[in-house]
């Protein structure tokens, strides 16, 4: 940072429907670094913001779920490209947010970039790996294909501000779902910068919507919302997890339970997250002359 000039500080906002609004509530909350020093004010999203985000995700679902797997793969790869270009910025933000040393921050950012690439490569393999033809005992052609579950609400990890976030949202959209994610409450700034990456990655507006604010305030509305088809409790406060799952039962949501402790996100994932957010559709047709 130059000594001569005052840096232009960024305003951190929400990301809903491809746009960057402030919270309709007008609220913000201070975000501090690991030493307690002020970093920035983040938007404190409200119930109404959450509902706007769900509406945007629902609106984006038909287009994104109908996009070809090849197209989705290229968009996810484009996210990796854009992220790579901002690598240094993310390393600094992750160091600030998580208080990790530079080497560790580099590893976390590099792994986050590579994770987008990993999921980008999955989009056009899911149907082959998870679906297929079923040899029924009769004159029918029968096949199964995976389809996206719909709108997925994600409570992002509270510890890993970038890699953890990417690890939970990339599989959602790789499968053709659309997403509303509540960023880690106290470490939200990398998620906002990631939104800027998403906005310039050919990702259609509304496919991924990022809310910052109080997880415990927003989560119950998302768990109850009838337009939300699945709920990932990854970053849910322990005291709320059961209640959120009970609420989700009201509309038979698919629920991804929280891990006992936040996993080591640098390990290459398997396809559980992809599979959990896909529905299998089976089609029958007679065979005959």
């Amino acid at each position, binding site marked *: 940072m130059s000594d001569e000039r005052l840096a232009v500080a960024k305003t951190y906002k929400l990301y809903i429907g491809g746009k960057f609004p402030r919270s309709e509530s007008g609220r913000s909350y201070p975000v501090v670094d690991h030493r307690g020093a002020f970093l920035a004010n983040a938007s404190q999203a409200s119930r109404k913001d959450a509902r706007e985000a769900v509406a945007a995700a629902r609106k984006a679902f038909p287009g994104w779920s109908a996009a070809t797997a090849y197209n989705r793969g290229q968009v996810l790869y484009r996210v990796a490209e854009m992220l790579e270009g901002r690598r240094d910025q993310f390393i600094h933000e992750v160091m600030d947010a998580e208080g990790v040393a530079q080497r560790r921050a580099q590893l976390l950012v590099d792994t986050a970039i590579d994770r987008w690439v990993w999921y980008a490569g999955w989009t056009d393999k899911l149907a082959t790996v998870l679906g297929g033809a079923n040899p029924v005992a009769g004159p*029918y052609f029968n096949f199964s294909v995976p389809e996206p579950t719909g709108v997925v609400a994600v409570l992002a990890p509270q510890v890993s501000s970038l890699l953890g976030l990417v690890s939970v949202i990339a599989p959602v959209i790789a499968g053709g779902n659309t997403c509303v994610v509540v960023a880690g409450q106290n470490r939200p700034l990398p998620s906002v910068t990631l939104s800027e990456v998403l906005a310039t990655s050919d990702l259609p507006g509304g496919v991924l919507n990022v809310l910052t604010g109080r997880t415990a305030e927003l989560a119950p509305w998302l768990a109850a919302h009838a337009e939300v088809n699945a709920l990932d409790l990854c970053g849910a406060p322990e005291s709320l997890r059961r209640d959120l799952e009970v609420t989700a039962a009201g509309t038979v949501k698919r629920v991804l339970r929280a891990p006992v402790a936040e996993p080591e996100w640098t390990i290459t994932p398997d396809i559980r997250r992809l599979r959990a957010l896909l529905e299998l559709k089976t089609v*029958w047709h007679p065979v005959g002359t």
Partner: protein
Amino acid sequence: MTFEYAPAPESRDIAALKPSYRMFLDGEFVEGTGEPLKTLNPATEEVLTEVSTASIADVDKAVKAAHRAYDRVWSRMPGSERAKYLFRIARMIQERSRELAVLETLDNGKPIKESRDVDVPLAAAHFFHHAGWADKLAYAGYGPDPRPLGVAAQVIPWNFPLLMAAWKIAPALACGNTVVLKPAETTPLTALVLAEICQQADLPPGVVNILPGAGEIGAELVAHPEVHKVAFTGSTEVGKQIQETVAGTAKKLTLELGGKAANIVFDDAALDQAVEGIVNGIFFNQGHVCCAGSRLLVQESIAEELLERLQARIGTLRVGDPMDKNTDVGAINSAAQLARIRELTEIGDAEGAVRWTSSCPLPDKGYFFAPTVFSEVQQAMRIAQEEIFGPVLSVLTFRTPEEAIKKANNTPYGLSAGVWSEKGSRILWATQQLRAGVVWANTFNRFDPVSPFGGYQESGFGREGGRAGLEAYLNV
């Protein structure tokens, strides 16, 4: 033209009905300590037999027995050995198929031709298919050594009593789990004969436990802390309660719930085939089918003609004695279900839909409901939104394919759907657009153990059947 048929009744003696049945716990038939229940023949309202039921204490005993069997025997047994037990069970179901079919028809009320040709053969096929998986799980796509979960608590409905037991037990056992299963209150008998088959097959004690009882026993079972897996087939209402119960635990859950399937007929459909498919879609098993084609969506230009042909065909359905091999539509399973069907159809009248009822004669005794078609149904009507679970079809019309899809998808459910068209591209397009787990194109109500079955949205989650169905019983 009317065809006259001489009655061709199946013999009741073949069911080998016993004066009383007991629950199956830890390899033995024992007296349950719950209040015994009397199970009726819904076609005659006569008591068939008395069945001892489980108490809360029995649930605990059964779960503990299943646990012991899991720890000491079943989870340690090589898959190839588990497979042989399942193959044995499949064969024994085939050997006793006529007995099972007659017993099923007596207890459930479904026509003998359905229990004989659908329920029992499919139950055997489910065991046969899953038997083969037991030593091939490493090839199922869930990693090199997928592990079982433990004790599976399974609660099943009354519409396909034996078949649902097979759908639940076969994959659970193939994957190395042990089972405590609660059959429906009104239809416990064939599951208890299946227990006898398990015993004859020398299945180790505790691997399968069968506890008859009412809803509260099911609730107790799924809430038991030593259960690792819960599988439920039944109403969306109860499914939601079970999902709430399981919330906050580590139990794996799969739900197969209600439906309100759209059966879409486009103007280029082969009408005679479509009529057969519509009839099969809604009147198979008296419409007591979660995936029944209960909403007919017909393109406006052919609606009048289709409805005419449909009514003519429905008029030929023979409703009555389920034991008669000529019967097409049997008895409604219970007085409670009959009351529910009556209530919803009266609401259909009140909401302004036009009711047509087959003029077929109905027996004097027993729970019967004549095949019924409501036309001029609007989307907001309750008969277009709620599952009736009976022989009642709601007919709606559409003009464009897009409108058909919108209407088809306009329910909280998403279990199944049907498409009728002679145009390949339109069929493939429609099957893509429909938000449902099973789509039948130019056919309806087909089932097979290799074919995954299960819903979208509030029709539940998880699949049963095929490779995909194994996931529900593996720690993956």
